């Protein structure tokens, strides 16, 4: 999934290998390649700039180790920075000590909220928990039918009372219902909206106030370009997100959005979606992804052999 970015990095490091020492000049060249690779991968330009500056500072300030070639050392620095940016550990969904745990999904149109809500339901049901889906999208044609169909498919409860009742009311009702039914996990599926749509953003704020979610997850399409991080930031400012889910990672998108959102928001990416089927949801492992970006499997053997 991050393979193209990985290839670009590998090319940079191959060029650096065999150099006597890291000079300002060859760092400049390598950094330019890294910049292009990150931009091609849709990493936000602000994040790219920050990242390049940090790597440069670290690389130039460091003593050249006896055991490594300058190229290998550069790899280590880039990898360390990248891993730090991606976050260190996998963060699980926070389950409330007093059920139901309420999870609210939000994001742009078509990012994969409803599908992901179904996948989360399926995954928690499999763990033996009682799950309920709530359909709070009253705008998109047949959104109600979609959430109902998914609930039936994965075999969980659903509350989707239609389009004559406000989304805020639906979510408040869903919470009450879930309490009564001893539901462990209630997932609120909201309509897709633009972060610049003030009225609809305010609706989310009110849903948050009335349904008191334990988790507010921003669902982002892995193919999103430069604006991904601005969108995520706007949602975060209004709602204080607890995490991010990155969908459509089964594409060949380089997924720079993941790096940007993670770097600028500091919020954990909790899951990744890797397909349209209800079982295509995986926990997100930041270290693995950072390694994958750099092709660190190979790189580490390279460094060890030195």
């Amino acid at each position, binding site marked *: 999934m991050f393979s193209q970015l990985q290839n670009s990095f590998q090319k940079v490091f191959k060029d650096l290998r065999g150099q006597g020492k890291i000079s300002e000049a060859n760092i400049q060249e390598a950094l330019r390649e890294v910049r292009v690779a990150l931009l091609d991968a849709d990493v936000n330009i602000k994040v790219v700039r920050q990242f390049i500056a940090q790597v440069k500072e670290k690389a130039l300030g460091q003593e050249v180790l006896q055991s490594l070639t300058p190229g290998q050392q550069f790899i280590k620095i880039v990898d360390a920075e990248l891993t730090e940016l991606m976050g260190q550990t996998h963060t699980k969904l926070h389950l409330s000590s007093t059920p139901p745990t309420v999870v609210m999904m939000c994001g742009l149109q078509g990012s994969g909220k409803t599908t992901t809500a179904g996948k989360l339901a399926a995954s928690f049901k499999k763990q033996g928990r009682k799950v309920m889906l709530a359909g709070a999208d009253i705008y998109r*044609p047949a959104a109600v039918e979609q959430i109902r169909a998914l609930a039936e498919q994965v075999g969980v409860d659903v509350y989707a009372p239609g389009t004559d009742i406000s989304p805020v009311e639906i979510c408040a009702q869903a919470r009450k219902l879930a309490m009564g039914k001893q539901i462990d996990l209630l997932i609120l599926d909201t309509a897709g909206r633009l972060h610049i749509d003030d009225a609809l953003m305010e609706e989310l704020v009110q849903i948050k106030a009335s349904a008191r979610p334990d988790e507010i997850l921003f669902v982002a399409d892995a193919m*999103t370009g430069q604006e991904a991080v601005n969108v995520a930031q706007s949602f975060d400012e209004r709602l204080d997100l607890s995490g991010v889910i990155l969908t459509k990672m089964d594409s*060949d998108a380089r997924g720079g959005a993941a790096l940007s959102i993670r770097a600028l928001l500091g919020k954990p990416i909790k899951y990744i979606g890797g397909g349209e089927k209800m079982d295509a949801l995986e926990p997100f492992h930041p270290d693995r992804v950072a390694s994958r970006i750099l092709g660190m499997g190979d790189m580490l053997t390279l460094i060890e052999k030195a």
Partner: protein
Amino acid sequence: SRTSSALTQRIEALVPGKTTIDDEYLDELEEVFLSADVGVKTTMEIMDLVRENVGRSLKVPGDIQPFLRREIGRMISLPAKAETEPAKPHVILVIGVNGSGKTTTTGKLAHKFIGQGKKVVLAAADTFRAAAIEQLAMWAERTGAHIVKHQHGADPSAVAYDATKAALSRHADVLLIDTAGRLHTKSNLMDELSKIERVIGRDIPGAPHETWLVLDGTTGQNALNQARQFLQSVKITGFVLTKLDSTSKGGAIIGIIRELGVPVRYIGIGEGVEDLQEFDAESFVDAIFGV
């Protein structure tokens, strides 16, 4: 407010107080393109063009705007095909990755054609996604189009086949075929698309007359991969660029048009039935600068 003076102000304001086109100014200009998802390669080409002309036709920041409007406009305006009498039924196949806006665009198109007094048939050939058929059915109801649909899970080519027959027997002017979202990387789903294409062509010679790839305007550099891969399987005659009412500029399309030589036909600017516009190269370039 899409006036040239607003654009001039915006470009002049890239670096406040700047009266000359210097390196700092050019860096800012480059960043405008990169932030608009134009991508490194195309941005470098545009910047080279600008640099070559600095000191010549480009003397002050105010010269940049008409220059870029013209130059980028030229890059992305393809010569229009000779207008021929449209076939009846005129068959349009709508394709693209998951969630890009195919069904919504199909609904908007139906509305547009019906508004021109045409008779429209819709084919619900997404039989895979939950409630995809119901979604298109609501668009049919909203616009007054006739819909041909099968059960969830049915063979999409069979839907296309029946819709073709229905369009013929009803003497429809336009047949719009909504397909399931599919990633360009999945070869079995690409094959399914070629099969739909073949089935339609059997009963209506030359159909589909148009195949429009719906690209999500918020997508970054992956849009190029999508266009390239879909083009491997089907004959794309146009793009529809959706969600341009967002803050994304959809700049990736510039490189796509240049590489593949396929024009953008429409842009989507909202979720409503009227939120579809014909693509206009100059307004598109203006929007990159935020006017």
